[in-house]
């Protein structure tokens, strides 16, 4: 009991938590206590600001060599629903975004591990985007994709990243981390990057001054210990490199996945999702931002998460296919006004940011309108 009190005091005072303390709090502390402490932690990082950005998501392909049991998005080679965008398609999407989304600051690209595509294609994609929208940030390719590129090209991780940076890449999204525990990965995603590989990519990117995000996919077969250990792994990396901009929790949507069929997994409740956001904010004391991705959580819960330590609602997103394939219900377009309203109602100041968390001058944007 003393340990529990001690852990509570540390959380309240904003001191660094040990694994055991975090576990105790996660299991025992009232959810709204976690929320209060997490909100105070948020304030230490981002004061009264809550961020959003104006972006477009592009998923280049859905045909995947990995076919992870956790995935509702990918299809196998030869499937009639498989697609891959040509460079011309990409150019069209980006031009459309440039026309329709005034003040866009980010193009966000994540895709499957598409067979029979060479690494040069991805470099060309980045170049294509850059040539049409030279001022936007290109946040693209999860570490899992980077490992895949290294394999198909025979190049080192470092070389792959360097070539992409030369082409115009500005940041990596944090996907594909799932749970950084190979026992879990063997079951949920046996054919993609291992924990060590994922970490290696992130470290290398950070050394090359390319920031990344970090994420977790939770609520499937992992234990609570594995779930929390994942956060501690991320905290250790961040102590070393300082290159994570934001942490993004992804609740697992069982719908349409092989994993859920086999293990009978139920969707997480809003209660669990908010509690997890709070504990993550408390554990990850060295990552500046915590993003709650409204498209996954629903607008309502994303707004509530602002009372549980989140400080970023992501962006206005067009065409997010991956999450909708798994049955997330939120609509896929959001407006700047709506995001600002959600943030203001929660008592915070809405700040439009770019991929690197620089605030964007809204007046500048007005001129584009």
């Amino acid at each position, binding site marked *: 009991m003393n340990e529990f009190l001690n852990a509570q005091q540390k959380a309240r005072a904003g001191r660094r938590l040990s694994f055991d303390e975090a576990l105790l709090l996660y299991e025992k502390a009232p959810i709204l*206590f976690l929320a*209060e402490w997490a909100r105070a932690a948020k304030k230490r990082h981002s004061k009264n600001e809550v961020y959003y950005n104006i972006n477009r998501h592009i998923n280049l392909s859905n045909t995947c060599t990995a076919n992870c049991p956790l995935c509702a998005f990918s299809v196998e080679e030869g499937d009639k629903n498989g697609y891959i965008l040509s460079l011309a398609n990409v150019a069209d999407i980006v031009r459309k975004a440039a026309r329709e989304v005034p003040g866009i600051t980010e193009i966000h690209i994540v895709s499957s591990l598409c067979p029979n595509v060479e690494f040069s294609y991805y470099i060309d994609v980045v170049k294509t985007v850059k040539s049409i929208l030279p001022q936007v940030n290109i946040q693209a390719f999860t570490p899992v994709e980077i490992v895949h590129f290294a394999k198909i090209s025979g190049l080192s991780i470092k070389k792959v990243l360097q070539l992409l940076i030369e082409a115009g890449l500005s940041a990596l999204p944090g996907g594909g981390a799932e749970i950084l525990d190979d026992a879990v990965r063997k079951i949920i995603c046996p054919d993609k990057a291992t924990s060590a590989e994922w970490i290696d990519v992130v470290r290398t990117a950070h050394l090359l001054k390319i920031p990344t995000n970090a994420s977790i996919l939770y609520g499937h077969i992992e234990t609570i210990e594995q779930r929390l250990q994942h956060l501690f792994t991320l905290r250790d990396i961040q102590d070393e490199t300082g290159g994570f901009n934001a942490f993004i929790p992804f609740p697992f949507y069982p719908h349409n996945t092989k994993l859920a069929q086999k293990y009978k997994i139920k969707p997480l409740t809003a*209660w669990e999702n*908010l509690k997890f956001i709070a504990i993550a904010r408390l554990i990850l004391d060295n990552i500046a931002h915590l993003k709650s991705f409204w498209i996954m959580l629903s607008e309502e819960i994303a707004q*509530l998460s602002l009372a549980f330590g989140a400080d970023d609602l992501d962006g206005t997103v067009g065409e997010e296919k991956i999450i909708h394939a798994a049955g997330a219900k939120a609509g896929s377009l959001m407006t700047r006004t709506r995001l600002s309203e959600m943030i203001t109602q929660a008592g915070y100041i809405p700040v439009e940011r770019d991929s690197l968390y620089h605030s964007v001058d809204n007046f500048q944007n007005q001129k584009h309108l």
Partner: protein
Amino acid sequence: MNNALDMIEAKVLSGQRLTREDGIALYDSNDLARIGYLADTVRRRISGDYVYYDVNLHINLTNVCIGQCKFCAFGCKATSDRAYSLTKQSVLDRIAKAASDPDMKNLHIVSGLHPDWPYEYYLDIIKTIKHTFPDMHLKGFTGVEIMHFVKISGKSIREVLSELMEAGLETMPGGGAEILDDDLRKKLCPNKATSAEWLEVARTAHKLGMKTNASMLYGHIETVEQRIDHLLTLRNLQDETGGLQTFICFPFEPKNTQLESCIIRTSVWDDLKTMAISRLILDNVHNIKAYWVMLTLPIAMLALGFGANDIDGTVGGEKIMHAAGVSSQKSLTKNSLIAAIKEAGRIPAECDCNFNVVRTF
């Protein structure tokens, strides 16, 4: 701002009553988790760790209604293609079917104000149901319906209520209170019971020994001050009679109502805040209900952390809210209610309409 909340916290922790200004200050604050925590503290003090649910059946006898309230998606004219009226036999059949579940003990009967049905018809329905299903607990008729009966029968409130009680009515639901402010009512629901009438029905029921619920419909055109005043009106009534059992917050669902084009549904943020503030202001009411049909189960579960101690029932047959396009399921199994309550760290307690705990899990 924090100062105001600090003062309110000190009051709450020492068990002092909150004022109108405190209520408004709470609405002004955006520290949702802290407000929730205060409400949770009060909830623990007043109603402990049980969360009530029941296995119940909703019966809406008819949707034909002379009310034509602007916020209502359920009521309609007799000539509408949506219009329906249940016969006595079909009511009995429905109950018989639901009663095949031995846990099903509670009936919830609320309906439109039918232009042609005489008062005796309702009396007869209650009598017949009670006669056929003597073990069923009968909760029925909002204050608005009772006033309608008073008007069509020429009897007093007291007579109507006594006769219904004699026929077998045991408690009354909390609907029809909306916001107890006649300026608002004139705009929103001019054809139904006034604030004073609604209050008089509740008061009379309490004097006759019948418990009732109370509710608030929020998120339409009312102000924060009007919400707080509504809660204070109910608190005063409760000080006087002690007959209010449960308070229920109804967020206004604009879909399919006359207000659809000008009002968007309020946020879940507001829902949880309102839940918590209601718990804090209504310090003399035992139960605060998170009605999952309106909130959806995930949010109702969260509301349990924001002051609620009741999640309503399995709600077979509910039509009124679903007419307004709410997206929750039509009914839930007992097990999913129990699981939600447990995940919120509380004790599920099945009860009858008088909050006698039938069993816990």
